[in-house]
């Protein structure tokens, strides 16, 4: 098992190196002089010169790349041009909010989606089956930021019962939970339908498998067969999808955080983009990418936990 994890982990390193190089080269795409673009209207000549010096913008490309990689290795992602805070501290503050949002939305959606899918498969002819197909279509149809807008319209504007702002007072779990309801629903809603349909289809296949018939032949209770024996097999396709989905989810988090003014990596990146605060943009994307790569790794590993056959190939 360990060999398999290490193999997967080692492959991440060259990928991340490539990610850093692409992130670094983005600044070259910037039209005009990056420093004055970053400073914008406040660009007095002295400030531009000072920034050029601080970000080594005036040196040759390989030298700058070296500085950048060295900096990232040391954990120093530079300082925000706009607020003067260290990028790493800004990210450290924003990360927990995004992680919480991602985990709750994906977690709850996966739980409800998979259970709904299994439920629809067990009750094959019930209307639930049809409902699941429609839900999955809706899930695909309504992108997360449109769902966020409609949810806000419904629960904050028309019937103002849920908060539409921020992530709640730190340390007050109820308040944090209440501030999570709408954003997590917006992000997760697409997943419920999709995972439900995926689980329902694979569950229907699994229920026809021989080992299920064996279990019935030995009088294992019907519920244990469906929700333990069959579900563990049926959930395998969902796990890969969830691993890949984290990337899409992080993308969605950007919009949900903006719409609900929630602190987080997404909002940090977009605010930095508006303020042309490039070190923060680079740092934010790097962290989001690392989150995504780790999530994929986690999915691969959990895949092996669920399906033992994976460990050995």
């Amino acid at each position, binding site marked *: 098992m360990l060999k398999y994890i290490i193999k997967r982990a080692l492959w991440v390193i060259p990928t991340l190196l490539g990610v850093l190089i692409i992130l670094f080269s983005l600044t070259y795409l910037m039209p005009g002089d990056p420093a004055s673009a970053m400073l914008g209207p406040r660009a007095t000549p002295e400030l531009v010169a000072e920034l050029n010096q601080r970000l080594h913008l005036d040196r040759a490309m390989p030298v700058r790349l070296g500085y950048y990689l060295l900096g990232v290795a040391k954990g120093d992602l530079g300082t925000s041009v706009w607020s003067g805070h260290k990028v790493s501290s800004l990210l450290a503050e924003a990360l927990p909010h995004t992680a919480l949002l991602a985990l709750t939305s994906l977690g709850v959606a996966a739980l409800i989606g998979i259970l709904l899918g299994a439920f629809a498969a067990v009750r094959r002819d019930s209307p639930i089956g049809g409902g699941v197909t429609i839900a999955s279509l809706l899930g695909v149809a309504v992108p997360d930021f449109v769902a966020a807008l409609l949810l806000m319209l419904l629960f904050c504007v028309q019937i103002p019962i849920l908060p539409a702002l921020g992530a709640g007072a730190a340390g007050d779990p109820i308040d944090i939970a209440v501030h999570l309801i709408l954003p997590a629903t917006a992000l997760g809603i697409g997943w419920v339908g999709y995972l439900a349909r995926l689980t329902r289809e694979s569950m229907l296949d699994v229920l026809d498998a021989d080992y299920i018939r064996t279990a019935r032949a030995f009088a294992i209770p019907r519920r244990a067969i469906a929700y333990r024996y069959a579900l563990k097999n049926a959930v395998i396709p969902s796990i890969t999808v969830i691993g890949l989905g984290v990337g899409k989810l992080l993308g969605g988090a950007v919009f949900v955080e903006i719409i609900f003014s929630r602190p987080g990596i997404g909002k*940090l990146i977009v605010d930095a983009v508006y303020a042309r605060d490039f070190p923060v943009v680079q740092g934010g994307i790097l962290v989001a990418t690392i989150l995504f790569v780790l999530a994929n790794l986690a999915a691969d590993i959990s895949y092996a936990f669920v399906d033992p056959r994976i460990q050995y190939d």
Partner: protein
Amino acid sequence: MKPDLKMGKILILMIAFLLLLSFSVSAVSKEELKIATWEDISTFDPGWLTSVERELTIMSCLFNGLVKYKEGSWDIVPDLAESWEVASDGQSVVFHLRKNVQFHKGFGEMTAEDVKFSYERIIDPAAKSPEKGTWKLLEKVEVIDKYTAKLIFKDKMANLFTSALPMNSGYIVSKKAVEKIGQEKFGKDPIGTGPYQLASWKPKTHVKLAAFDGYWGDKPKINKVTFLPIVEDSTSETALRTGEINIGRSAMINVKSFKKNSKFAVYSKPALKTYWLGMTVNKPPFDKLELRQAFRYAVNVDNIVEAAFYGTAKRANTVLPPGLPDYWSDAPVYKQDIEKAKNLMKKAGKSGGFKVNLFIPGNDAERIMAEVIKADAAKAGIDVVIEVKEIGAFNDAANKGETDAYIQFYTSTIDPYYIMQWFAGESWNPSQWRNADFTELIKKGASEIDPQKRNQIYVDAQKLTDKDCWAIWLTHGTKVWIAQNNLNIGAIYPNGRMTPWTMSFK
């Protein structure tokens, strides 16, 4: 028991739990005041502040100056200085400081040393402070004794008491603190003498202030104030409706609906800024005075202001906002008069009409104004072509005079010099208007200390502007604050700036 029933039960339980949570939404907890602002503050260092008006509400909580505007009006009253004497030649002022005033976070008592340090650090050429211009007439500060400081000037400084001392560059910082943590860090961790001190600052997320129990003046009634940077008006409106913020703002169009709603109280004040429809005077068509006057009669200012500000703002008749001492109260009010406009055009040989390029920035107010101007001007045969430009490009093009007409706004302070100085100079004078008498008047005004003489100088300057008709004044806009009705908002300055330390919950 059927397996699927159990599943159904779990789902219903989960949904019920979520709903239960939502009803326990704690309305904004009593002792914390939440205020929505436009953008986040970029630095807390009074000497390095750039966009002034928006950040003064926060800065005035953290710092005091030697003098201040009395809360709710522009009268100058003592603050950290109990009294002062102005030298007969006006070249120096001696301030007697209040005793036993403590700085935040245990940085000790405020003394004349701090006053000297606070001003000299701004005029120090090496420090490159953006406020250098405000104090260019200050030569140095002398420490007479622990509680007495003498400011010495190169020349008489007219706006010392009106827009220097009581504004951000006049705030007193703790010398010990700045020397200990350095200017850059001080921008993130300010030490002043104000009623509140900085509790935490998360860029683009919130600024949390906590009441300073060692404050020399009367303690604020609310001990926690949080400023939330909210860019979109609609987000602030929604937060007001769900009770998440105490004070916020709304799009102009929705102000009426908040006024009607008993849960809210609406406070609106004319903003200290002026919108105008400017004409470039150094090239056709507006190099001819008659055509400028014709354009003035063609447009209907009342319509423009009503459309863009939905009735929340009044029209402006001159560059200075009303309420300022040197406001030209009997400035002429030009009503739309198509006939007069046509006659003037015939006199200038353009009876068949002419084309006008109108540049505007992308925000909604200017867009709406441009549309109304285009519709009215067409009645007089003037064909207005609107071009929307991104804010940076708009300012460049307007300042270089690349357009025939433009819609621009400048913010001002209670000191007329602050806004009128630009029209005498080269930069930020979009109409390219050069008038020697006007420039002479502005220079004299800058060093005239006697208030009556100073007011007359600025009124004459406004008359000159009206005579040359290079600008059609539109409005001073309005600053609207909407507060939950469980809050008495205390004193609000004439331009809408708030004073959190005077606020309390009912």
